């Protein structure tokens, strides 16, 4: 199978998966459309109410059977109607949304809003990916240096993969709060992009850690293996300078291997982006999803889900195409 037929097959599989994901997303996200509340309304998860005397110590205990007051029915007909209305609105491009960020208007067109939202997310994603990959390449390259540099590279990449995104954000926020309270120095904004340029620092740093750590690990492992190959020994024996040996020979062998891990890295980075956006108040699609879930707006959740799946499939497809182009011997490759 040639390179391009392999690429076309990969894209075909991914577009098929996108179709499947789209169906699942719409069916799942629109579930609340079928709910008909027939009795007293209690928010889901509520365990009831405790009345306290604020001046005394009190023990908080849930009221027995508190959730039982919630009476509802789920109507398949209403659910079906909700899905049809949503799809019609989506195709006609006239979906609307109520209560969006900082706007006085009560009803706004949804799709233009989501286009802006996605663009904000894309800027963050692209900047973080680029920063992470460049830093990861440098960090991964340290594996060829001294023992200390190697340990530093491996240690940092293992830690980067291990420490969760939400912990990084919380640590970053605590650090800037601490420095502001103690020294009056605002390192970065806790509030995201609406905090000005400084609002980009924390989400960018937190989101670029994952691609950095992944790239460093992939490159260091691939370089380690490539440096043991016969052609490297031959190049050294011919007197080729070490820098050229690494850049021209070892990197060429290592890059396709490193690209094998790209789809997994994109998967984790995109998931992480949702969390980073919510925690740093970055008004991208992650925050939009959160808003849709919190305000019970299934059409917002479904549309963001569709955008997210399409975005993921395009990025995954690009990663697989790059991998195939870097090494035409790698055909297909599944989902990585």
């Amino acid at each position, binding site marked *: 199978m040639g390179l391009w037929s392999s690429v076309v097959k990969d894209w075909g599989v991914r577009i098929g998966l996108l179709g499947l994901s789209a169906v699942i997303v719409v069916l799942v996200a629109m579930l609340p459309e079928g709910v008909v509340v027939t009795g007293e309304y209690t928010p889901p998860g509520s365990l009831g109410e405790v009345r306290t005397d604020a001046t005394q*110590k009190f023990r908080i205990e849930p009221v027995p059977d508190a959730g039982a007051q919630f009476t509802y029915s789920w109507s398949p007909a209403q659910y079906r109607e909700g899905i049809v209305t949503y799809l019609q609105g989506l195709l006609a491009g006239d979906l609307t949304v109520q209560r969006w960020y900082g706007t006085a208007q009560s009803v706004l067109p949804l799709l233009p809003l989501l286009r802006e939202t996605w663009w904000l997310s894309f800027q963050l994603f692209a900047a973080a990916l680029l920063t992470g990959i460049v830093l990861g390449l440098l960090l991964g390259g340290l594996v060829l240096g001294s023992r200390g540099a190697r340990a530093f590279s491996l240690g940092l990449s293992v830690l980067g993969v291990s420490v969760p995104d939400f912990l990084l954000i919380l640590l970053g926020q605590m650090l800037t709060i601490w420095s502001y309270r103690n020294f009056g120095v605002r390192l970065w904004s806790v509030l995201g992009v609406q905090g000005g340029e400084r609002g980009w620092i924390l989400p960018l740093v937190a989101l670029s850690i994952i691609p950095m750590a992944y790239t460093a690990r992939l490159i260091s492992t691939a370089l380690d293996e490539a440096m043991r190959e016969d052609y490297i020994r031959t190049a050294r024996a011919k007197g080729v300078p070490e820098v050229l040996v690494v850049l021209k020979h070892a990197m060429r062998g290592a890059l396709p291997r490193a690209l094998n891990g790209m789809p997994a890295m994109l998967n984790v980075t995109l998931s992480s982006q*949702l969390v980073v956006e919510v925690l740093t108040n970055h008004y991208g699609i992650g925050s939009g999803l959160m808003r849709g879930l*919190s305000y019970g707006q299934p059409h917002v959740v479904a549309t963001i889900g569709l955008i997210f799946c399409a975005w993921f499939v395009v990025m995954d497809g690009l990663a697989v195409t790059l991998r195939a182009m870097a090494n035409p011997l790698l055909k297909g490759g599944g989902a990585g």
Partner: protein
Amino acid sequence: MRRLNLPLLLGLLLAMGLAVLLVLPEVVSLPDPHLGAYMQMEGKRLRLAPFAPGEFGYVLGSDMVGRDLLSRVVYGARYTLGLAAAVIFLRAAVALPAGLRAGWLGGRAGRLVQTLAVGFGSIPALALVAMTLGGLRWLLPGETGWLAVYVAMLVLSGAPRMAEQVRRRTEEILVMPHVEAARALGATPRRILLRHVLPLMRADVAVMLSSEMAWVLLLMGQLAVFGIYVGGTVAVRGDGWVRHIEYLPEWGQMLGANRHAILGSPWIPFYPGLALGLSAAAFHLLAEGFRLRGLRRG
């Protein structure tokens, strides 16, 4: 000279820390994690909760209604780690037999496991689980039903990937000479899988379980950020005020329900987030350490 396996060492140290948290309430007397004190007197001044770390004897501070955060974080280890362990147990209970069977049978069964793994991998787990649970939460107001669906979704989101890893490893082991010898001697498939394949997977299973535990804890934390957690909320009503607060001291819930407090009272979401994040890191490091040990042993 034996080389130091730093990830394993760090992972074990953190895991020991978690074990200490689990048994701490049995050896040290801690305040009741559900006991709140909304007001405290400081000289002639009346202070309202939340109280900062170090104030009024609260080592890690208090939450919005004056419950002791240290006590809640310590007790929370039981709920959070217990929940994650239950998810892993169920995932393994589904994925191990399915992967072994698919590896043995090959053909359609193998392709089915492979397709499921690719299908579930085509949407990032966080988005899939968040949207599904976000949709289902309105249909399941009761805590038991909600907990069951929450656990089921966490199990489902990772089981196909785990089954696929087991299937691949089973296929590798099945072509080994000792398995062929067992086949030639007429051993049943069940005996071959249990006696000759599974024992060779011990190292892989250790890596897999640690790694999956880390992913489950990470996913629980990420879902909590999206307001999806278990434990329920209680409306606490005083004179002229009402606060909707989390009930069970589960780390994810404590982080998610209080994430807006980061500017005013940052300690409230920080400590549960730190505990959850360090637990995930501990299991990631353990998995990395086990993998490294396996590589060094060849």
